[in-house]
């Protein structure tokens, strides 16, 4: 079985990447598996300056999923480069930095800080966070802005692959993927969380201090598959599939509709070794899908009737 995948200038030993915000900086999971075995790690969203994030409560469990409104709490890009990156096994596994900023110019500055870091394999541009009031999804819902941000990051990335993470909270995901491609993106990743809400009838309060938050987990997998399917038809650049993946079978479903790799997010909360278990289980799931390599399965969905 060949688990290797190559796309957008990245060579990954398998298609399983941990998703931003669900795997810390990777170091938090070293007790639960050998993080060098992961195809890649997308670290917690980074901003130019440290951010305290949103008030509590920030998370709520929902059927087959969860809502979060963390608000990109992070120590800032410089602390990441200084304190976290040197501890990560970046020679063995792809460390992908996730970027958050509130203006096109700030995205450029942030990219500039990371562009020269040998340990960073690629940049994932977050134009889709639903939990911050400036930037984030405000960019992700406007194809013109997606293209501008992508162009700016690409310009400052010194050749590092640029992945644009797209929001599903749009009318036409294909249009957004196309905007990223037009801006020079090397790949797109999708989907970020769906905007959602939960309330408590006893207290008559929202369950999140931010009132609304991002829905993730198995509940959103059908939406995610549909989005990846539509994006795959709209663009030629590689796609990283994200949304509700908890098993090797789930991962292969995204490959089947056209993804080059996948990100595993909320499943890391089911149990902290879940991403490693998915990798262990991939060969068995590939037997089921009757493929010897990931490449052989990619984009082979048969929609004929």
């Amino acid at each position, binding site marked *: 079985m060949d688990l290797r995948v190559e796309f957008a200038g990245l060579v990954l030993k398998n298609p399983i990447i941990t998703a931003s915000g669900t795997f810390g900086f990777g170091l938090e999971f070293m007790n*639960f598996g050998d993080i060098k075995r992961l195809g890649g790690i997308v670290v917690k969203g980074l901003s130019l300056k440290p951010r305290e994030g949103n008030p509590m409560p920030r998370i709520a469990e929902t059927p087959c999923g969860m809502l979060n409104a963390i608000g990109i709490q992070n120590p800032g890009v410089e602390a990441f480069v200084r304190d976290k990156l040197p501890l990560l096994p970046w020679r063995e596994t792809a460390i992908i930095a996730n970027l958050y900023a509130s203006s096109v110019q700030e995205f450029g500055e942030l990219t500039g800080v990371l562009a020269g870091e040998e340990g960073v394999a690629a940049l994932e541009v977050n134009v889709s966070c639903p939990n911050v009031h400036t930037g984030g999804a405000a960019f992700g819902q406007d194809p013109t802005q997606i293209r501008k941000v992508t162009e700016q990051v690409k310009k400052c990335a010194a050749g590092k692959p640029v992945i644009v993470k797209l929001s599903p909270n749009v009318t036409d995901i294909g249009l957004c993927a196309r905007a990223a491609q037009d801006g020079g993106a090397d790949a797109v990743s999708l989907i970020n969380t769906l905007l959602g809400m939960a309330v408590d009838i006893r207290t008559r309060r929202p369950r999140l201090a931010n009132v609304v938050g991002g829905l993730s987990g198995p509940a959103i997998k059908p939406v995610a598959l549909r989005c990846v399917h539509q994006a795959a038809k709209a663009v030629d650049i590689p796609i990283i599939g994200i949304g509700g993946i908890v098993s090797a079978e789930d991962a292969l479903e995204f490959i089947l509709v056209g993804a080059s790799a996948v990100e595993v997010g909320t499943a890391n909360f089911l149990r*902290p070794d879940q991403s490693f278990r998915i990798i262990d289980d991939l060969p068995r799931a590939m037997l089921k899908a009757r493929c010897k390599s990931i490449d052989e399965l990619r984009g082979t969905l048969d929609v004929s009737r």
Partner: protein
Amino acid sequence: MVVRNCREVKVRELRFLGAWDGPSDFVELTLENPGWDGYRPGQFAMLRPSGWGLDLTWGRPLSISRADAESVTFFFQVVGRGTERMAALKAGDAIIIWGPLGNGFSAPPDTPTTLLAGGMGLAPFRGYIERHPTPEFLRLVFAHRPDLDCYPYAAMSEKVRAEEVRERTPDDLPVVIERIETAVRETANGLVLACGPTPFLKTVQQAARTHGVRAELSLESRMACGVGACLGCVCKDGGDKHVQVCARGPVFKADDVRL
């Protein structure tokens, strides 16, 4: 001082040995030995019954009540979907568990130490009392609303000086607060350890400040991961910065946390 425990943490699948025959909403859950006899009282674990499907997303953070070479015990109250389903487990059922997590309470020998427990906050003190090098220095003050029979109080009161105070109606609240404040005041030069609901902890924190008594507070929080990744369980530290209850706590020096 709050000391960190450095034991190896792994995900294990353990068999459920049995629960006590108490009131149905109060569950004492004993699992086969995970090798945690070196845990530090105050630490917690994440539990997820193997039979849970995908409809429940997170494990549940529970304070370790006691552990020895044969077993580990948790004590919890049914408060929602997860704990309801954990209460319905049968002997032999498997549970996915990761821990021990977080830090624990200080346990200085030969130091007058007052354990202040509010309701389910009694749980971690069971193991604390069992393991303390000089239990004759310990005093337990237990504030509760439901009947005393709902808690493993009797077994604990045999081992240390213990007293309880019950809040039957809201009118009893001033009496409970007075007992907490008195207990803190009487621990001058000693150590106060508290575990319970946030209003209870606030009372302890305030009293400790007023009387200049050293205190540690064990916080509870909703958690998704329990290992410091999701940032869903933060509280504010003394400098008003968000810190994770799971990774930096759950036990904090009273001065290091804003409630």
